[in-house]
């Protein structure tokens, strides 16, 4: 899982971008702690061809990216 909690944008997007670039995973979980990052990571992931599901994660957000 990419744990980007505590980071503000664009850092979470950069972390996801890196993870996608390095392994091109079919499934990737990302944790963020603010709505702005949820929107930004979702947008980035959709552009990279992923489907995104957002769920609650210890009071923060978990995004599940699947191809």
């Amino acid at each position, binding site marked *: 899982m990419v*744990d980007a909690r505590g*980071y503000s944008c*664009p850092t979470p997007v950069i972390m996801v971008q890196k993870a996608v670039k390095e392994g091109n995973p079919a499934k990737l979980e990302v944790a963020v702690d603010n709505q702005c990052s949820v*929107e930004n990571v979702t947008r980035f992931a959709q552009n990279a061809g992923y489907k995104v599901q957002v769920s609650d994660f210890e009071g923060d957000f978990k995004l599940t990216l699947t191809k």
Partner: protein
Amino acid sequence: MPKESFVKRYGLLIGTGLAVGAAAVLLTALGNPANMGFCIACFLRDIAGALNFQRAGFDAEVGTGIVQYIRPEIIGLVLGSTVIAMVRKEFRPKGGSSPMIRFIVAVFVMIGALVFLGCPLRMVIRIGGGDLNAVVGLVGFAIGILIGIVCLKRGFSLRRAYQQSMTEGLIFPALMVVLLVLVLMHPSFIVFSAAGPGSMAAPILVAFAVALVVGVLAQRSRLCMVGGIRDAVMFRDFRLVSAFIAIIVAVLVGNLALSKFTLGFEGQPIAHSEALWNLLGMVLVGWGSVLLGGCPLRQLILAGEGNTDSAVTVTGFVVGAAVSHNFGLASSGTGIGTGPVAIAVVVGFVVLAVVSVMNMQKLEG
């Protein structure tokens, strides 16, 4: 998944940009200084003045400096963000992501902004008014952002922020309420300029109400002048930059309609034509703002959402403004300041370089 529609993708941002531009034109028509409908740097500087942290251009006969006033626009922006964040359950106090680094970077961002004479928002507003000096500033701003992007790509981060208490998160919005009371009551220890830009102001409640609306829109749309160019370059994401352009368009149309548009370098309101300093000032602003994660406007909005790192950043802006004016670093319509401007700008670049290099790390997931 279907692609977002154009309206969904750009609608809110373009709408916000148009609203900001229209608000800037309106507030100027109602009394704010020219091409300064909404300048975060200038208005925080004026607040620093009202609290007597600086009294630039002090005239013994008048009894005040020229840039001292509690700008209701700042208060409205922050509280608009606070209210909408509360309503949408996005008010989450957090902080602790290198607060002192943010503070010192913010001081130099403000020094850079006052060398140029405006924050990124006023730069855009000046461009819409035909001020070509601001185009020079834009070039510097873009250069600064590109330097910042290189840092981000090399792993620059000011580290994690952590959840804070509700009290911690509410202090900054509460301070804004105090400022609102002070501007409405105007007790004798608060100084309002009797001459100069600080004496030019739209009616308090109108300015506050307009800013409140803009604050709500900016919080919802995540409007950011720095983010615009940054995201366009880094992610080919042109959403934020569309708002940037919308502001220029709105201000341009408004100025043309009111016959306030004058194209040129010389004689522009509250601006100077020393290209080198306009450029370098905005390089500082662009680079520093990328390190801070957003332009001064965005910092106000984040502070309103309970982000105490942004609250510290805004405090740094206020201190930076006082430093600028107390040491003659701020420019004026006649040119750059009479103090050690070159030294301050060079020191600013050194500080940003050290901060950038020392905070590049491998981002652990």
